[in-house]
């Protein structure tokens, strides 16, 4: 088997995650989809690392994880505070950005 | 390098800041102090502008009292001021008119009693109004004195801002919400039209710099550029010159305004206070025609010649069209606005006839139109403020109850229709003669304008001032001392310049001749010249 297959897997997962972001309305699930996309890219990075024989890919994947953690923390905090005020976690309910 | 010019510009600018910073308050004494300060500043400006005109040596250099301070060195932009006869005269006109406008608008910006709907009245209204007028004055004077193309552009555009607020923020009190809506429409229209023009001009200004820099003239200095163009050192290709000319001309034509770019003027003049309307038509718009004379002709002589016939036709259409529309108006202020459009047609015609009579006439026309329209419009404003209506049909028989008001209004009307003995006649006739010697057909058709002018001016007078006294007019008071103090100097100047315009022509003629020589144009020679001595020999 060629490790390229890992890349295919990553592409697939990324696409599923992206589609999920577009389809789901629950903010929490939305976040999960984003996490999935990040994980997919991590997988690709790890695979690249293996393909190139250097560890830089893994380092970047590591940083991605850290940033993802930070993002989740802030994002969930936002969701919680939105839920407090609007009693809903649906992103469609927050369309106040409209002109 | 004397700082006279910059002082003339700086005084009203500083006055604007000072006026705006004066303590606000609804008390009458505070407001009076504000007005007094503003009036004082404008009087000082008048003195300075008069000194400039007096110190200008008609037969000296083209630009005098020059000053130059570096500004944006990398683009060759400087803060350069200099004055020629035309600029000196027009700046003086501005400085004369602004105190008049202030006096005439003395109570226009007072915060009125709170409306029935509890409308919010800005407590700084008075300060704002007078500060804005001073700001306009400063910017207009800089425009007249600027000898740097970029500097001119900046102030040409910047004066839109205070004008926008003057039009949109202050108007007839009586109108109510509908009038406020109309006013804001007028202000936005004014701004959009002029911004569009300015935008096109900006492109042309940049284009000029690029083209000039290619040939080693990386500067915005007008005298340098103009003399390089005249000497052939700076050669613009035909297409480039035409495009740049049109870019500049478009902006000036919008501001002037030239038919068919005029439609913002009736709205703006109709909705603004009479004082603001005078500022628009007598002061700000003059920058447009002035700039045609100074920039279009000076920088693009060949294109000016190429486009002159087309522009003359547009101006001609404007003359007749404006006059015809003035005849058909129902609103006094809009009528004055359309009359002004007709007059601006004459001014532009005089400029592009490319004869010394035409251009001297056009320059005098700017001055005379400023004075006469100011008188006419301000008296109309006094009339409107008494009755609270702009509709001609609401008036009648004013002559009976307020003879002085009617008399001054008649003089304004007569000046508008260019009666000999009043200043506008001199300029209008010069423009007609100047046009006729080069383009007889256009000159003849333009002459119809004087018949139409009589029609709209006298029709307005007849409908408002004569006949049986209408109900709303019966208790109308005559002109008060303050109002008389506004009108009397204007009327006196109009008469004086109608009978003895020589001081002005002496200032203007050399500059006009210089402009004409830039365009490589001379007056057409008469077919059978006769001895120029006038009259038979004296016995």
């Amino acid at each position, binding site marked *: 088997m060629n490790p390229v297959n890992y890349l295919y897997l990553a592409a697939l997962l990324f696409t599923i995650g992206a589609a999920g972001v577009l389809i789901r309305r629950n903010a929490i699930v939305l976040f999960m989809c984003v996490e999935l996309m990040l994980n997919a890219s991590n997988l690709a990075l790890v695979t690249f690392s*293996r393909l190139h024989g250097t560890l830089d890919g893994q380092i970047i994947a590591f940083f991605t994880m850290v*940033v993802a953690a930070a993002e989740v923390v802030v994002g969930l905090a936002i969701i919680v505070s939105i839920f407090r005020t609007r009693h809903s976690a649906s992103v469609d309910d927050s369309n106040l950005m409209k002109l | 390098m004397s700082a006279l010019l910059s002082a003339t510009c700086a005084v009203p600018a500083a006055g604007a800041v000072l006026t705006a910073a004066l303590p606000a308050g609804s008390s009458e004494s505070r407001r009076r102090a504000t007005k007094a300060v503003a009036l004082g500043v404008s009087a000082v400006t008048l003195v300075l502008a008069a000194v400039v005109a007096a110190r200008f040596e008609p037969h000296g250099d083209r630009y005098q009292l020059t000053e130059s301070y570096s500004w944006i060195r990398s683009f060759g932009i400087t803060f350069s001021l200099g004055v020629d006869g035309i600029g000196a005269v027009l700046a003086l006109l501005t400085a004369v008119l602004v105190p008049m406008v202030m006096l005439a608008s003395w109570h226009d910006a007072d915060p009125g009693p709170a409306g029935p709907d509890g409308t919010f009245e800005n407590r700084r209204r008075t300060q704002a109004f007078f500060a804005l007028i001073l700001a306009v004055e400063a910017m207009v004077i800089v425009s007249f004195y600027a000898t740097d193309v970029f500097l001119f552009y900046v102030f040409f555009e910047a004066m839109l801002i205070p004008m926008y607020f003057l039009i949109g923020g202050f108007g007839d009190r009586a109108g109510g919400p509908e009038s406020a809506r109309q006013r804001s429409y007028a202000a936005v229209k004014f701004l959009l039209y002029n911004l569009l023009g300015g935008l096109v001009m900006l492109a042309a200004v940049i284009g000029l710099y690029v083209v000039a820099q290619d040939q080693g003239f990386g500067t915005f200095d007008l005298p340098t550029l103009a003399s390089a163009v005249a000497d052939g050192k700076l050669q613009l290709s035909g297409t480039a010159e035409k495009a740049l000319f049109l870019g500049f001309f478009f902006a000036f034509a919008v501001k002037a305004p030239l038919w068919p770019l005029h439609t913002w003027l009736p709205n703006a003049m109709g909705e603004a206070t009479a004082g603001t309307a005078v500022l628009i038509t007598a002061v700000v718009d003059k920058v447009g025609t002035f700039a045609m004379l100074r920039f279009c002709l000076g920088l693009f002589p060949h294109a000016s010649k190429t486009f002159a016939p087309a522009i003359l036709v547009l101006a001609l259409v404007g003359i007749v069209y404006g006059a015809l529309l003035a005849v058909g108006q129902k609103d006094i202020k809009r009528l004055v606005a359309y009359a002004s459009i007709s007059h601006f047609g004459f001014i532009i015609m005089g400029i592009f006839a490319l004869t010394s009579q035409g251009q001297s006439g056009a320059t005098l026309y700017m001055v005379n139109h400023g004075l006469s329209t100011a008188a006419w419009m301000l008296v109309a404003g006094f009339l409107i403020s008494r009755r609270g209506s702009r509709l001609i049909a609401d008036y009648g028989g004013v002559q009976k109850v307020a003879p002085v008001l009617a008399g001054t209004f008649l003089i304004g009307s007569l000046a508008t229709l260019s009666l000999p003995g009043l200043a506008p006649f001199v300029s209008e006739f010069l423009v007609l003669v100047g046009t006729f010697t080069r383009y007889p057909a256009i000159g003849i058709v333009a002459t119809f304008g004087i018949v139409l002018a009589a029609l709209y001016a006298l029709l307005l007078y007849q409908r408002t001032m004569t006949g049986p006294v209408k109900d709303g007019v019966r208790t109308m008071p005559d002109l008060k001392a303050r109002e008389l103090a506004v009108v009397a100097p204007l009327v006196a100047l109009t008469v004086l310049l109608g009978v003895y315009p020589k001081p002005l022509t002496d200032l203007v003629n050399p500059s006009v001749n210089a402009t004409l020589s830039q365009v490589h144009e001379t007056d057409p020679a008469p077919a059978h010249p006769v001895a120029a001595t006038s009259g038979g020999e004296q016995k």
Partner: protein
Amino acid sequence: MTSYLAEATGTTSTGEAVQFWVLAVIAVGGALGMVLMRRAVHSALCLAATMLALAVCYMAQGAVFLGVVQIVVYTGAIMMLFLFVVMLVGVTSEDSLKEQLKGQRIAAALCGLGFGVLLIAGIANARLDHFTGLSEANAEGNVPGLARLIFTRYVWAFEVTGALLITAAIGAMVLTHREHVKAPKTQRELAAQRVKDNIQLPPLPAPGVYARHNAVDVPALLPDGTIAEDSVMATLRERGQIRDVSQAMLQRMAELENSTADWLGRPSSERPAVTGPRKSLEQVAANGRDGQADEEGVE
């Protein structure tokens, strides 16, 4: 775990291939499950499965440290955080199936499909028949190798990441923190307020009173057998997660009466009728979700 030893060729070991296919199926299945499950909690569980599968993939590719971090931090910490929030928002809350944005689903599917095709085509076009492998890079062990890089070449990024984490933590606190605009009311003031408002003067009833159980989501029963909604905490009320047991209680009472009557041998005519405010109960029962919860509760 030994697969990376036999590398520096065009292919991997068969073991890894088998492992990959198994993990790939789990990962894709988890991902699809996450997107398609209606309840957030199920989605979270599916995502956890995917992440675990990915963790194994990392390890299989010589990223041992990352694999562990994935399990500990992601699956362990982040997913738990998700679950907490899911709990807070409501475990049983789910998306309705109705899409509100016109064409959103079809467009999303098309975009996803297109994007997938593009990515896969891109990868397929790349010349990737040879790979280096990590045996050399991992010679002194994966963790020391990473550590060397992190503290040398990427030390600046690492420090910035630290700052980011702290910022995020503070940000989360700020976002969820409720600022007291006024000084909090004392108990005395609250009591005074209650008297003044005169809405609920006595203390709220405790949940489960007179009910069969005293779980927090079981409302107390009033003397007439109806439920006292006030006895359940506000969050549950808001989510509609009240377990109404009133009817079951009444049934049970009736059964008791019946059995007593049986035991006493009373004729059926003398037995007391099963009484109660039927109407209000029917109303409660008609309330869809509550009715469901009710049934579950009865079991």
